[in-house]
């Protein structure tokens, strides 16, 4: 008897997703890095997200929405990763000192380094919204879909994140460089 378990040909959806994941890996990695500021963590989370995406591609109804769907999986994997790491501590309560970001400390471009440092200091849910909008240029509706939150929440988080960044960057102009601190939601 031929069953799906022993007769295997890749579906058109799987092939399309394979190609899309391959071409989007850089974007996924950049986003995971912007959320974690750690290359090793970003790599692990992207791998996990790819596995989950490949396993659930058959659930995708609209192939054109693959991009936001992949970022949604990435976001879920990121939260799962830190939940496991923190052993079920409330993620909002966790504050990490960002010790492994020599790129920030030694960056040749101080202005961009200070922006990264300021982003690292944002609460995770603000950081997620601002990076999705400003780095990957997703629309508010797409971000709402990726993070499974109302569009109004996207707008208010984005606004608070921008105000906070503005303040931090203005302060850093007058003060000596602060040690980056990374909040994990």
């Amino acid at each position: 008897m031929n069953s799906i378990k022993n007769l295997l040909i890749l579906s058109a959806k799987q092939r399309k997703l394979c190609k899309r994941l391959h071409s989007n890996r850089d974007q996924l990695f950049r986003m995971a890095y912007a959320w974690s500021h750690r290359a090793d963590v970003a790599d692990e989370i992207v791998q996990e997200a790819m596995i989950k995406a490949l396993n659930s591609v058959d659930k995708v109804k609209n192939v054109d929405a693959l991009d936001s769907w992949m970022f949604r999986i990435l976001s879920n994997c990121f939260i799962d990763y830190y939940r496991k790491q923190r052993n079920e501590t409330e993620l909002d309560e966790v504050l990490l000192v960002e010790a492994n970001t020599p790129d920030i400390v030694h960056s040749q471009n101080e202005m961009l380094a200070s922006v990264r440092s300021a982003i690292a200091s944002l609460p995770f849910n603000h950081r997620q919204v601002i990076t999705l909008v400003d780095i990957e240029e997703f629309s508010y509706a797409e971000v709402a879909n990726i993070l499974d939150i109302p569009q109004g929440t996207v707008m208010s988080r984005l606004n608070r994140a921008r105000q906070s960044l503005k303040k931090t960057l203005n302060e850093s102009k007058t003060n000596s460089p602060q040690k980056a601190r990374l909040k994990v939601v």
Partner: protein
Amino acid sequence: MSKQNLYSDEHISAYIDAELDNEERARLLFDEQQDAELAQRINEARVLKEKIHLAYSDIHDTKSSKNPFNCTAFVSKQKTLVAGLAILVTATALLLSPFTNEAELILARQLIKNTQAVEPANISQTIGVHKQVVINISQYQPQNFDATINHIESLLQQHSADTSFQVEIVANKQGLKALDTRTSIHAEQVSQLATQFDNLEVIACAKSLARLATEGDSIQLMESIMITPSAAQQVAKRMNAGWLYLKI
């Protein structure tokens, strides 16, 4: 009178993010040109957005190879091959570039791991009308393999006039022992088939050869056997080209 207080920060954010409808956008654009303080607020917001965009523009994933690795370049016929060479092939392949497409590779690894094996007696029925088949052998049980290789030979004979019919046997892990000239009773038969039929390729996984060698189990292959850096890569490549995957 300044109009800057008419607009909230959220409104300005929506403006620079192209989230306003045309009417609102036109109104704010007009006011921006009339009001220097409002223009200053909008400019600051734009500069911040640009800085954030640039802050991560130099972050690149080292695994996203722009020069895809071509498996076929490393599938080469070898004279009697020892595992030491396999280690070299593996190391070279991994150093050059890890794989063609990581997503395909992940999928192939999962299939290799999770797919149920087909009974030798069901091979013909399972293949059915498919013309291109990649058969993965990851264990060697002489009796089972005997039936398998006989079925494959029979299939190849049935399709001897059909040039579109192609079979690729990819051996990895313990399945490599079926190809070992020193211990397998089937090594010579497999080699003869690979020589006799142009539409049959028998491929050994270099990673598995290297692993077995480090465990003191060096495999010796006949000259007609080809080597691929990894079985998963080979399966991924074939499946992406629409081949049927079977696990024995």
